[in-house]
């Protein structure tokens, strides 16, 4: 399975077990995150450590998750790799998301 989640304190950490978060899996990822939110998870951290490449569809799925939780919880990202960080800079999405250097930092820093 491409995605897994675990609880760390009151956070739900979603691990993407793929090197590419692109159009071919963006919809499945969005559905996975929406299901978590629909099941009451309100503090979500996406672990991007394995993701070496992300396109605008992958980014769109993250924005959809953030939007769905907007005002009712937290949705942050951890361990973004250089090409992913670059995409966030290029699209100004670094202004929208909290980018943590690690999952540990994300679950400690809130």
């Amino acid at each position, binding site marked *: 399975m491409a995605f897994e989640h675990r609880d760390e304190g009151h956070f739900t950490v979603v691990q993407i077990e793929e090197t*590419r978060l*692109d*159009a*071919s899996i963006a919809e499945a990822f969005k559905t996975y995150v929406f299901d978590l939110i629909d099941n009451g998870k309100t503090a979500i951290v996406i672990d991007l450590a394995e993701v070496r*490449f992300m*396109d*605008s*569809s992958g*980014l*769109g*799925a993250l*924005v*959809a998750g*953030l*939007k769905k939780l*907007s*005002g009712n919880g937290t949705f942050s990202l951890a361990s973004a790799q*250089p*090409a992913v960080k*670059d*995409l966030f800079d*290029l*699209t*100004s*999405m670094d*202004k*929208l998301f909290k980018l943590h250097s690690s999952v540990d930092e994300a679950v400690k820093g809130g």
Partner: protein
Amino acid sequence: MSQVLKLEIDSQLSNTTMIAMAVRGVCAMTTLSPVEINRLELCLVEIVNNAIEHAYDNEAGHPVEVCVDLDNTMMNIAVSDWGQSIPDDVIEDKAEPAMDPEHPETWLCSGRGLHIVNKLMDQVSYESDEGKNSFIMKKELRH
């Protein structure tokens, strides 16, 4: 003298990675930096996926052709399909949509691909000829 590589995939999103990896290989022959190669890969993936999702409405069984033309000064990439062409207003819309962190209604979940490509490539053009639509991207090379 230029060197030309022509690739073709079937119109399925899962095939885009093969094109991306092949063109990354060609990029390794050039003076492009790792960051530039990542960005070129991003642009290529956006346009190939655009052809699959919009020209062919996500229907498998249609060709997407990528032609890479390389010389000492320029890398020229043409992505072609034989499906629905991109509407003029979409091609001409160069302005990036404004995003306000305070207003979730401005947080768009789609429609960023062409803006990213316009921002990163040195030159882009689009043409349709006898049912063949080609999106052409150019990247200048240092030499």
